[in-house]
Structures are given as C-alpha cells and as structure tokens.
C-alpha cells in the first residue's frame, strides 16, 4: 500500500521512511503541506497519509481541512504525527477530520498497529467501491452481449433528446430486429441463438461511432442512438449495418447460419417537439414496414409523423 509522509524534520522523515518500507509500504515523502496536497491530487494517490502538525507554509491541520473539503476522490485516512500532546490540540485535530494521531516521540510498535487499523478502513472502502462499481455495471449492461441494457439505453436516448433540443441538433434512432430469429432458435437451440445475437451485436458495435449508443431493447431487438445525424447520415449508417450483417453468415459449432436484420429509422424533423415515446413508436413503426417489405432492409418514418 502507498503511504504519504509530510514531515519537515529530515531525521523523523528518514526514520519513518525506513520503518514503513520495512513493513512493506511504498513511501511517498514530502516536506510541506503544499507538496502533500499536490501529491494527493495525482491519480493513484496514496490513501494513507501521515502528516506532521507543524510544517512551514500550510500546516498539517490546514492540509487536513483542505483534504476533507474535497468532494471527489477516494477517502484519505489521515494520521497526524505531532509532538503536541495537548488535549485541546487533539480535539481540534479530530474535529478537523483527522482519523488518528500519534504523538512524537513515537514508538514504532504503536505506529504499526495504528496504521493497521487505518488500512482496515481503507480496505473496507475499496471493497465497497468495487462492489458498487460491479453492481452498477450489472445494472446498466446486458448480461449476454455487454452492451447497454434496456433501462440504460432508454436513459441515454432521453438524455440525447434533451441535448438535441438544447443544441438544436439532429438526432437519429434505429430500431433493429434480427430476421427470422425464432427460426434460428427453433432449429439450432437457444445456445446457438445466443451466439448469433452476440456475433451480430459485435458487428453492429464495430460499425457505429464511439459516441453512438447501442442497447438491447428485447430478445433480438436493439436500439441505436445516433446524436447529430440527419436523414442522409442515418440512411448511410443503416445501409452500412445491413451490409455488415448480411454479407457474412454466423459461424457456430453446428454450421454457418445466414443472417440479416431489419431496421426502422427515425429522424424527427423538428427536435423541439419530440418526446421519448413518440420517437420509439416512430422507429418501431418503420421497423414493421421494413419487415412487411421483405426484411434485410431499412425504412424511415416520415419525419413529419413524429
């Protein structure tokens, strides 16, 4: 674990460095509060900090106040190392957000166990953050394909609608359905069906731009959100996607399965009037027309319909 030492006395600093390194810490040292503050802004900054109370310039107490005033970044466990052993000072320090203190001259055994207590807090927070991130990923991504799930792509579309209104910018939406997917499932089984879905999603994802959004709407239906795209651009992207899927069958352990998709597109003419439901419905209507017109094609809803 990385640990920060802010200590202006070279003897104390050297002693701390040596024993902390002996205990397996990776030590970052500095000699005043300002330097410590800068180190703590870095990416992968130490989460454990030993600060001397009395330092030139910004002292340990002021630094602690500054650290606790941050609204972002991980929690930093602060231990104040000081020869002040006045009760009032300890209260002042803890009030400011110091987690623990140790008075100089310190005994290394005491420091060791106190640091261990600090690490427990940091480890606990790291575990919580990791668990939260993992849940967040699960909550927003489709388990099979890894693209946005229904809820997340809806949120993205809603956000892009608002952004288009504000910036008076075009917005394209595609509703995509895999042709004869039921037939694939019935003939080859659901596992092969999953392979087909994943392969198609992979090809679609490659063909869209990094700032476009793609999500799974339902079983074999997908939504693509295309910010800043007019009719012309949306048509081009839809054609590209159709080709990317139909030009090559999906290879499975069983055999090569020819695949195609149908696409319903919608680009509202007047972004000021659009809402989420109407744009989904328009794309859906266009998708039905593509299906009716023989599949492996795209249809666009007449923009004045929205």
């Amino acid at each position, binding site marked *: 674990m990385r640990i920060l030492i802010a200590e*202006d*006395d*070279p*003897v*104390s600093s*050297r*002693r701390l460095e*040596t*024993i902390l390194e*002996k205990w397996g810490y990776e030590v970052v040292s500095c000699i005043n509060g300002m330097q410590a503050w800068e180190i703590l802004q870095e990416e992968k900054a130490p989460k454990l900090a030993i600060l*001397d109370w*009395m330092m030139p310039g910004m002292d340990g107490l002021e630094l602690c106040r500054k650290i606790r005033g941050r609204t972002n970044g991980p929690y930093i466990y602060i231990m104040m190392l000081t*020869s002040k052993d006045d009760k009032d000072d300890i209260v002042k320090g803890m009030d400011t957000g110091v987690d623990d203190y140790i008075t*100089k*001259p310190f*005994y*290394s055994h005491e420091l060791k166990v106190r640091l261990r207590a600090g690490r427990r807090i940091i480890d606990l927070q790291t575990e919580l953050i990791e668990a939260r991130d993992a849940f967040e990923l699960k909550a927003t991504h489709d388990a099979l394909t890894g693209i946005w799930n229904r809820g997340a792509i809806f949120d993205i579309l809603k956000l892009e609608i608002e952004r288009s209104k504000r910036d008076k910018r075009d917005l394209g939406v595609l509703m995509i359905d895999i042709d004869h997917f039921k037939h694939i499932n019935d003939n080859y089984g659901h596992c092969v069906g999953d392979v087909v879905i994943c392969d198609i999603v992979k090809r679609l994802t490659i063909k869209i731009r990094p700032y476009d959004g793609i999500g799974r709407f339902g079983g074999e239906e997908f939504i693509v959100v295309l910010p800043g795209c007019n009719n012309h651009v949306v048509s081009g992207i839809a054609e590209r996607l159709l080709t990317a899927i139909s030009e090559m069958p999906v290879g499975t352990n069983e055999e090569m399965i020819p695949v195609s998709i149908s696409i319903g597109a919608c680009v509202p003419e007047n972004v000021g009037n659009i809402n989420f439901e109407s744009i989904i419905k328009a794309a859906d209507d266009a998708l039905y027309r593509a299906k009716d017109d023989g599949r492996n094609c795209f249809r666009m809803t007449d923009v004045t319909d929205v």
Partner: protein
Amino acid sequence: MAVFNKAEVLEELGDDVEFLKELSELFIDGLPEQMDDIKKAISINDNVLLNKAAHKLKGGAGNFGKNAVYETAFRLETIGKEGNMDEAMEVYSVLEKEVEQLVNELNAI
C-alpha cells in the same frame, strides 16, 4: 551520565546500528542551523520564533528517545509559548552543553 539511552533507542530501531548512524548523521548535520535559529530568537526576544525553533529541535531529538536535549528543547518551547523569556538564555546554555554531549555520544556509536 549519558544524555541518551542507546540500548533503548537501538531496540526501537530494530537493533540496526547502521540505521542509528544514518539518523545520527542527519541529526548532527541539521544541528548548527537549528541551534542558530534558537539563539537568534532569544537574542531578538522573539518568543513565537523561539517556540517554533525549539519545537523543531525537539522533534528531531525525539528520534533518539526522550533524551536530555529533547527535554531541554521542550523547556525552551514552553518558554516560547508562554512568552516569559527571562530564563531563555540560561536554558539555552544548558542546551548547548547537552547538545555537545549528545553529538559526542552519537558520534561514538
């Protein structure tokens, strides 16, 4: 009588004599400036400066256990804090002798 307890300090440093030597050298190197700062603070009768300078020496000396230099620096720090500078010069003379003895003992390691 020795001003610092070598056995106790060594035990604290994991019986690492080289480490104690290294810390001693660092401490001794910084001493002239630290003693000057204290002397200057007393001569211009600046108790705040004395408090800070004595505090700093105390911090460094504390790495060698609670020795005589540590205790006397603490006395000067307190004098600086309380602001009654009458005894400061007298205590400083004691400190000078103790520092000299501590340096001799550290050099003898």
